[in-house]
């Protein structure tokens, strides 16, 4: 049932103001192109879920799209802080950001519970940690056999999951490989799923037991080459570590951030245009998608 369409159409028709969305991809395959499209379409009042908010949510937060964020590690990997996230939490700019903070183990289990149509997940988590004091959604549950106290955490059930993958075929079956994170769980936990892919091929040359999302669990498939830039897509391109470092400067200052976002993303026609603008602004040449 996957609809092979444009990213503009997929984001426009599936993501609504006020929705809960999960854009996943653990360092690898982060759906940046889709994040930009959400910014361009000016979505508002979103609850955004992501284990590692990374630059993709720093951009959404700074542009005022986000009401609440559910996350477990909010840094710029290998660089330092996410300044727009910090500014929202520390100074309430551009507005107050509600946060629900968990651990990686919790969120990974909570996505798996969502994919499994369970209302909660059970884990050995948080013993001795202060996190449960600040998150009433972290509770305890007793084992009915041993009496042990374990952690219960509510399943994650986003309205829309957004992930990026290497390939889809013409029916919309999706193949990803390498670090696959919680993408399958996020897609299966969600009511609808948008998948951007590097390329659409006639036939997926999948290994036995490969990570496949069949077309009938994907709502929309959109071809967006380099759609995970500045993250990486194994077999296609590496991580743009320089961009991650440059972001530290861009995002540190509110005005610089807004100018940069306006020029590179808001005023861009699409992700290919963003890549051209970025290449030009960093002294490179125009590229053709």
């Amino acid at each position, binding site marked *: 049932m996957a609809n092979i369409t444009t990213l503009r159409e997929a984001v426009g028709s599936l993501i609504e103001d006020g929705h809960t969305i999960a854009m996943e991809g*653990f360092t690898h395959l982060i759906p940046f192109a889709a994040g930009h499209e959400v910014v361009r379409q000016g979505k508002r009042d979103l609850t955004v879920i992501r*284990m590692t908010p990374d630059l993709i949510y720093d951009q959404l937060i700074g542009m005022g799209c986000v009401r609440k964020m559910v996350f477990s*590690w909010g840094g710029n990997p290998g660089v330092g*802080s996410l300044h727009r996230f910090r500014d929202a939490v520390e100074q309430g700019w551009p507005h107050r950001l509600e946060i629900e903070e968990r651990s990686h*183990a919790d969120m990974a289990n909570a*996505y798996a519970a969502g994919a499994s149509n369970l209302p909660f997940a059970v*884990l050995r988590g948080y013993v001795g940690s202060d996190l449960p004091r600040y998150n009433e959604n972290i509770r305890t549950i007793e084992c009915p056999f041993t009496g042990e106290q374990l952690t219960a955490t509510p399943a994650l059930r986003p309205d829309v999951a957004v992930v990026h993958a290497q390939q889809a075929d013409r029916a919309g079956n999706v193949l990803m490989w*390498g670090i696959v994170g919680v993408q399958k769980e996020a897609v299966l936990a969600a009511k609808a799923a948008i998948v951007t892919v590097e390329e659409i091929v006639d036939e997926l040359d999948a290994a036995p037991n490969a990570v496949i999302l069949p077309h009938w669990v994907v709502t929309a498939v959109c071809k967006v080459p380099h759609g995970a830039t500045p993250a990486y897509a194994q077999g296609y391109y590496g*991580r743009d570590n320089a961009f991650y470092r440059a972001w530290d400067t861009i995002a540190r200052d509110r005005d610089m951030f807004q100018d940069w976002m306006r020029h590179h993303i808001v005023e861009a026609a699409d992700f290919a245009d963003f890549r051209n603008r970025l290449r030009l602004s960093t002294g490179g040449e125009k590229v053709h998608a």
Partner: protein
Amino acid sequence: MPDDFTATEMMTVAAARALRDGVSCFVGIGLPSAAANLARATHAPNVALIYESGAIGTKPDVLPLSIGDGELSETADTVVSVPEIFRYWLQGGRIDVGFLGAAQIDKFANINTTIIGDYANPKVRLPGAGGAPEIAASAGEVLITLKHSKRAFVEKLDFVTSVGHLDGGDARARAMLPGRGPAAVITDLGILTPDPETKELTLTHRHPGATVEQAQDATGWALKVAHSVAETPAPTAEELTALRDLNARTAAAHRKSEAA
């Protein structure tokens, strides 16, 4: 013996040495990753490195900048999903050593990576928990590495993100925590290990050129000092070469990927 090495090099070498060969090690990013990979390049070729991104038995030739670099996946025995890595491997009790960094640490090696100041009204919002609370709880034992300073080594944490020895003694056992908790804290000045009884961190080694007084001055509580503080053996030529090669390969790879 090379006499020219930095405090960071000494810290990394000392942290690497703390990792025994043949163990399975769940590696945090940053200093722990450098130390674990140095260990693999020197005395611990058979250490199995696991990253929370799902890479199992990974053998990176360069240090990953992020926890999920392609280098980790390409050189791994296999890569599993993130739910699986936390469920079957960490919580499942398959990890011998967890290797963590921290922003703040207290005398019982509890750590804070969440917030400086008040949670609702923070002075500095740090990245948060990541995998640390469950690594700290479930790994067979925990190694922690961070730089020694009064800002980091505090009497009272602003926030307990991940447990060390709680309030000491047999508190971990009483809390039914699966792992034995922090076995050592390796800083740029020396090595601290928990007292066998009280579990209070105790300075047992000072690195060459560092003094007990420096360590005490860089600690926000009255630091317990072992009866006899040994000097950490300086990095060997082999260790330094391996570390510098690793860093040089890493820098070259990152330059190359940026030029690409």
